[in-house]
């Protein structure tokens, strides 16, 4: 998958975009402002947004419009969020979801 990592932005306009920093599974990453969580992960080379409940198979962006529920991820400790429906925000903690996902324990 290394050939897909990074550089998914349009080179032409990436420079003038405000950048938002967030983490994927604890790793620092960044994306253009106004990008959905799904697109931000895709741009960072993460195509498997979750592993399915029954078979543990990877799923990515499919319908891109909130209908298919394939792009479920954990955002700031909350599982089963459609990554294509949420805009990436500064400091957001995104985790690719394993199966049914899990709630983050309150500190």
């Amino acid at each position, binding site marked *: 998958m290394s050939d897909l990592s990074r550089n998914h932005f349009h080179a032409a*306009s990436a420079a003038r975009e405000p950048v938002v920093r967030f983490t994927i599974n604890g790793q620092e990453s960044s994306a253009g402002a106004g990008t959905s969580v799904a697109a931000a992960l895709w741009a960072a080379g993460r195509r498997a947004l979750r592993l399915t409940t029954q078979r543990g198979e990877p799923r990515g962006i*499919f319908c891109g419009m909130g209908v298919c529920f394939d792009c479920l991820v954990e955002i700031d400790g909350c599982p089963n969020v459609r990554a*294509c429906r949420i805009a990436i925000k500064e400091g957001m903690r995104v985790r690719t979801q394993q199966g049914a996902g899990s709630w983050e324990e309150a500190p």
Partner: protein
Amino acid sequence: MRHPVAIVGAGPAGMSAAITLAQSGVRPVVIDENPRAGGQIYRQPEVAAHAPAPPAATGTRLLRQFAEADLELLCGASVWGFFQDRRLALVRDGKSLTVEAQHLILAPGAYEYLPPFPGWTLPGVMTPGAAQGLVKTMNVLPGRRVLLAGTGPFLLVVADQLQRVGIDVAGIVETASRREVLRALPALLARPGLVWQGIRLHLRLRRLPFFWKHVLIEARGADSVQEAVIAPCDGDGRPDVSRARTIAVDTICAGYGFVPRIQLAQLAGCRLQFREGLGGWVPEVDEDFETSVEGVWTAGDGGGVSGALAAEVEGALAGLAVAQRLGVLDRKTYEGKRRPLRRRLNGLRRFRDGLQRAFRLRSGLTDLANSATLVCRCEELTRGQIEEGIASGGTDVRTLKVISRVGMGPCQGMMCWPATARLIAARTGRTVEAAGPPSTRPPIVPVSLGELIDVDQATNSHPEGTAAVVERGMA
């Protein structure tokens, strides 16, 4: 306060209905799940000067009129239920609210359909619309080398957009034959401007490999797409696998047309009818687009897929009819405004019928899935498992859901019911219509208990509260 009109969906149909009503002096409330108006077709980027503007379908005039119209816009709001007295239940910013209206115009649009085929759940297989969204509004490339497959002119539109941002488009795989498209020309010429657009699009894409009368039969890869397998097919879309060939790509965009989003109409109790050419089950409407439930109207692709231009006209017609019903438009003015719109709609419908004949969903596509191919993506059920359910008495979509869990996942069967209904039809020897519509229950979008609990009490008990919540949402 009860709103005079609530419109669900700010795509071409919803925007056009809202503009028409505002021009007649009615202030509608418009609800949309997306961060901005425009719908899927006229999606507006979050950051200005994003992706290069597409040649057609910018919807500039419509978006401008909508922005200038006197209305209330509730963006980022998902409708999850429909209750008595045309009361809509919404979630927005983690809170619940209700919107009650005298008239409700449903303009939810449609979603893309693709029949299940081996490998269709691999990351990197997506709808053309998803790829378009990444490029148009997110500035993100869906892949480096992309194959488009399926049927219909939307594949060309997306191929063009992908090429413009420097993506290597590996080809376009189209189940229709060139002859079928030529045969549709007389009907298509009802809208010569659109035919000309299509020709220009073809000319721009003339260097791309174009596989007429071919079908995508498999997506291969370990954790992500690495190869697409395509084969020539017959008129029913049945592939000749002996002549299959492999194309190295990292992304496949597959789309075979659109399915109306009827969930809200179903919750409202609207009578449905099956219209294959309109994308499946659609609400029954009279000529003014009122459904079988008084005061509930539908316009645009959500009431039957006819495309963005028809959606805009249907929205205007529904808006006029509602204005007339509300008594703000006299019969004569109404008739005068209605006539040219009806004429325009008739032309657009002839065009749609022509497209639909050439780029129809072919029966052989059902057999792209083998017994081990997942059909229900949510519940991870294979064709084999679903067929076992049919054999044990699940001979309609609803019963089969109870028996096999097909369609019981979070998408509520939206992605799989067309395939499931076709498997039932094939096994029982009956029509797809006889398999019945999928069942729908609220909430039609996921709602957390926290969101349900966090209700502004004023919203429910004091009618003024609804308006207050809506107004606050605008600030």
